[in-house]
């Protein structure tokens, strides 16, 4: 695993275990409850998620399977981002899919974990995993193709039986 400190530790650590996984670690000078609030209350999300750009929260269903959609407005236009929650553990973990309108169906799975530190600060770990084309191409050569062919053959048999 390659670790690159982007600022002086322990504030932020960025590492790239593989070209399809992005891991970031931050320590915030705030209690876990406050960090959780900032991550989960729409009126608070709107104050930082857009990175200084205006953020419109079009949809926010904070529950397992719930759908979120944010649109960031800047001088360069509007960019929509959305996903669905896979898992929510209050004050501990949020797992969601993440998609940008500009790269439809290039889905990342983002896991954010919060840990209360003894000194009152909070450690946030964010891990995002992308399903890349390279990975898809890899699968094509390792049996997926065979699997798909078998499925088509099975479909052919069903269709033949239907006459």
């Amino acid at each position, binding site marked *: 695993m390659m670790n690159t400190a982007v600022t002086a530790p322990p504030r932020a650590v960025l590492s790239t275990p593989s*070209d399809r996984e*992005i891991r970031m670690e931050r320590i915030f000078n705030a209690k876990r409850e406050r960090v959780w609030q*900032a991550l989960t209350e729409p009126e608070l999300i709107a104050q930082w998620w857009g*990175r200084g*750009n205006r953020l419109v929260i079009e949809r926010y269903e904070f529950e397992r399977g719930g759908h979120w959609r944010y649109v960031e407005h800047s*001088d360069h236009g509007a960019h929509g981002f959305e996903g669905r929650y896979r898992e929510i553990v209050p004050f501990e973990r949020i797992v969601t899919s993440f998609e940008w309108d500009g790269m439809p169906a290039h889905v990342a799975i983002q896991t954010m974990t919060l840990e209360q530190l003894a000194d009152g600060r909070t450690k946030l770990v964010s891990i*995002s995993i992308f399903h890349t084309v390279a990975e898809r191409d890899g699968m094509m050569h390792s049996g997926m193709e065979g699997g798909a062919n078998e499925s088509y053959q099975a479909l052919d048999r069903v269709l033949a039986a239907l006459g």
Partner: protein
Amino acid sequence: MVQFATQLDGAFAALSDQTRRGILERLGRGEASISDLATKFEMSLTGMKKHVSILEDAGLLTTEKVGRVRSCKLGPRRLEGESAWISAYQQMLTEQLDHLEAFLERTKGSE
């Protein structure tokens, strides 16, 4: 920071177009002239020049005039469409966490 954010927004704008992602993917396999690209993407020279200049502004592509031909290759970031998106995502997340940190500092004691 502001300039960084602007560059990132430029990268999003550049990558939001399917043709421009296609151009990056094509250049990932080697250099091409603007007219080659216009032919490949069935587009006017003027239309292609516009796409190329958006990609160039975002640092995803560079051009060089060789004789009468303007040749394009991947820019300093040397990123194709998908890896450019992953890289932009990484930058975006970093900026979001910066802003989250600033927000937490700003609202300290107000809860």
